[in-house]
């Protein structure tokens, strides 16, 4: 199995006790209310937080105690974390720079073109829109050649129009890398998911396809 | 460069600054560090605080034998004279009325503020007390008591004179201001905080202040009135008893000074004819040749 997650961590209101597996190149969703433990789960996977017990295996290797920067797991938060003192291009060069590599400008140009941000390479982050910033953050993450890309409610701060326009962009990721995407919005799951887990008060209540989730829980979502 | 350290009476600041310039010109390898303070304080910094020091110059030569002999000094040169005056400025209250005969009446007025230095730290301070009690004899009026009535100074008339006792923490009226040394009153005088200050004549001249000259019987300037002056004693908080006498400055090199050779050079310079000339130029009355007192 590509990623095996199995750990427990005591939180203030309940114990987070999670176990699931993700396949290579899968687009995997973690679905749940706010406060269900979704963000903590991915922070443990990235190494930002430590579990109380349990282990994480990536590609068969135990990464539970590996420092964050050696895991090759990229993390995108809901507020796009661009470095404000670098322009877009410098942000994109960052993954090369920290590894002591020369930035591959050819590759950067190509991927920027592909994801529609080649026009704004010289802009500083405060001058671009929220949707553009989120694209740049994801492209930057891809340039770090991650084994796994984690998106923590990546569309949450964006308006409906931008959100909708980013869906094809995210679909494009499927071929490139394995993705874990956190959300509380069923539309994102419908559009993008291979599989989804449903998290409630720290426990995994469901694993499977989105259609099965809908039929099993009988959620009432409004529709147009 | 050698740092020659000189502790000296505040009233010597101006002539010593001038002497320092000349001396450093003659001896470029020496850097003179002048530290002015009340004379008692200057000596105490050497004998009590054991601060490194090369030369001490005191506004009362007799303090040196009394406090520094034999451990810290073995001689003193009496090298300058002075007298006590009452300084004021144009904006002092009653400045156009005050004279030799009514000054004590004016100081008594409730809207007049005046100052003198702390007798425990500065000879100018106990000399002011001496002058005020000598004024009792001279004008035949209870001047001391009337001016310092609300203070915690005590005055006792004994058979052969007057004894003034200064307590450790001196308290006075609201319109009498006290500072650790007499020159520190100058800022208060200039700012108009006080109207009058007891200072040495040299200081008054150096700072171009107006002043009332006091009668020689009380201003402690004249050898002639030596016996009259000696009727007054001041007992300081540290127990030392000081007899009234003419104002004579003394200078000595400190035994165990960090720079004995340079200390001797400075002492010799101050008591030389050249030194006397510098003193005179800066309104300080020199004694030339100086008088040597050994233990």
């Amino acid at each position: 199995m590509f990623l095996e997650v199995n750990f427990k961590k005591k939180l203030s209101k309940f114990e987070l006790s999670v176990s699931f597996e993700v396949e290579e190149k899968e687009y995997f969703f973690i679905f749940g209310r706010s406060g269900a433990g979704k963000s903590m789960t991915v922070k443990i996977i990235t190494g930002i937080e430590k579990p109380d017990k349990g282990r994480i295996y990536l590609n068969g290797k135990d990464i539970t105690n590996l420092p964050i920067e050696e895991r090759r797991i990229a993390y995108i938060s809901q507020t796009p974390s661009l470095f404000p003192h670098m322009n877009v291009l410098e942000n994109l060069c960052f993954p090369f720079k920290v590894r002591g590599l020369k930035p591959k400008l050819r590759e950067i140009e190509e991927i920027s073109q592909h994801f529609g941000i080649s026009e704004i390479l010289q802009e500083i982050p405060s001058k671009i829109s929220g949707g553009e910033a989120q694209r740049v953050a994801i492209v930057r993450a891809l340039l770090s050649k991650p084994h796994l890309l984690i998106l923590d409610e990546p569309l949450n701060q964006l308006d409906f129009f931008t959100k909708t326009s980013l869906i094809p962009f995210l679909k494009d990721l499927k071929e490139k890398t394995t993705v874990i995407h956190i959300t509380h919005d069923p539309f994102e799951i419908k559009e993008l998911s291979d599989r989804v887990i449903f998290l409630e008060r720290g426990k995994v209540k469901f694993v499977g396809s989105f259609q099965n989730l809908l039929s099993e829980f009988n959620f009432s979502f409004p529709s147009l | 460069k050698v740092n020659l350290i000189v502790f000296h009476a505040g009233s010597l600041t101006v002539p010593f600054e001038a002497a320092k310039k000349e001396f450093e010109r003659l001896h470029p390898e020496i850097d003179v560090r002048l530290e002015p303070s009340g004379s008692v304080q200057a000596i105490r910094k050497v004998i009590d605080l054991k601060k490194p020091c090369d030369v001490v110059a005191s506004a009362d030569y007799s303090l040196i034998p009394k406090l520094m002999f034999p451990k810290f000094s073995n001689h003193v040169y009496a090298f300058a004279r002075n007298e006590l005056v009452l300084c004021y400025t144009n904006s002092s209250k009653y400045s156009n009325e005050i004279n030799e005969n009514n000054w004590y009446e004016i100081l008594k007025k409730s809207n007049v503020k005046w100052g003198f230095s702390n007798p425990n730290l500065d000879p100018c301070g106990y000399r002011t007390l001496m002058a005020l009690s000598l004024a009792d004899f001279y004008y035949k009026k209870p001047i001391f008591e009337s001016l310092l009535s609300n203070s915690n100074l005590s005055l006792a008339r004994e058979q052969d004179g007057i004894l003034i006792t200064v307590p450790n923490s001196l308290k006075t009226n609201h319109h009498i201001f006290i500072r650790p040394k007499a020159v520190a009153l100058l800022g208060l005088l200039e700012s108009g905080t006080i109207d009058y200050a007891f200072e040495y004549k040299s200081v008054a001249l150096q700072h171009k202040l107006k002043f009332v000259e006091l009668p020689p019987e009380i201003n402690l300037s004249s050898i002639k009135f030596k016996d009259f002056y000696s009727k007054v004693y001041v007992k300081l908080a540290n127990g030392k008893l000081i007899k009234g006498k003419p104002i004579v400055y003394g200078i000595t090199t400190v035994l165990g000074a960090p720079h004995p050779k340079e200390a001797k050079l400075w002492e010799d310079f101050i008591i030389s004819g050249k030194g006397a000339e510098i003193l005179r130029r800066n309104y300080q009355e020199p004694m030339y040749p100086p008088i040597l007192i050994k233990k």
Partner: protein
Amino acid sequence: MRKRSYFKFLILTFSTLSFLFVILPILHLLFSLNTESFLKTLKDREVWNALFTTFEGATLSTILGVTLGVPVAYVLSQSYFKGRKFLEGLFDLPIVIPHAAVGIIFLELLNSKSLLGELLSKLGITFVDTIYGIVVVMCFVSISYIVASSLAGFESVNRELIWTARTLGASPFKVFRLIIFPLSIPFILRGAVLAFARAVSEMGALLIVAYYPKTIPILMYERFENYGLSSSTPIAALVTFLSLVIFSIVLSLPY
């Protein structure tokens, strides 16, 4: 409606008073200055020597303060243990200790009788009446500003930014060098300038530890004590003017 304008009136009156309280004394000093004696001060070698000593001391003390204060601020900003607030507050201590006590404290600690003093004096470093003494005292009274300001800077860097950088392959050192430090430079600078100004202003502790070489506050006090206002006011005005320059630097820093 009446109550409202009453509130406004009261608030504005007190604000104006407050403003006058701070600005009036300074303007009075600068405008009541006698030009002639000011020019004389500008020609006074001792004043320039004292200014030089002061700026030398304050510069060295600020460098020392940054060297000691910035790392501690970084460690504090990255720590989440219980005693953290306590340690943070510790660096406010030098502000609340009376300046004369600071002087006495350092004289006790560094005189040649104490262990540390003896050790250092064997290395030829003594503190009483030396530039070392000036620097140590200045640094002690001013380091709080550097620690507090750097800490504010380091904490202003979003944690998600730091995490993101780590997941992109940056070690803690790289994160510090490429993200946290560059983003905190304005804060560190502000702290350094405030510390410099505080160092320049110190007098109480220096009177005790290092009367010589004379710094400008000590010269000012000495002139006041021995010659009165006419000699000390021009120096005060000069130094106040220089302080105003420092102050405008603080203001013009991006922050």
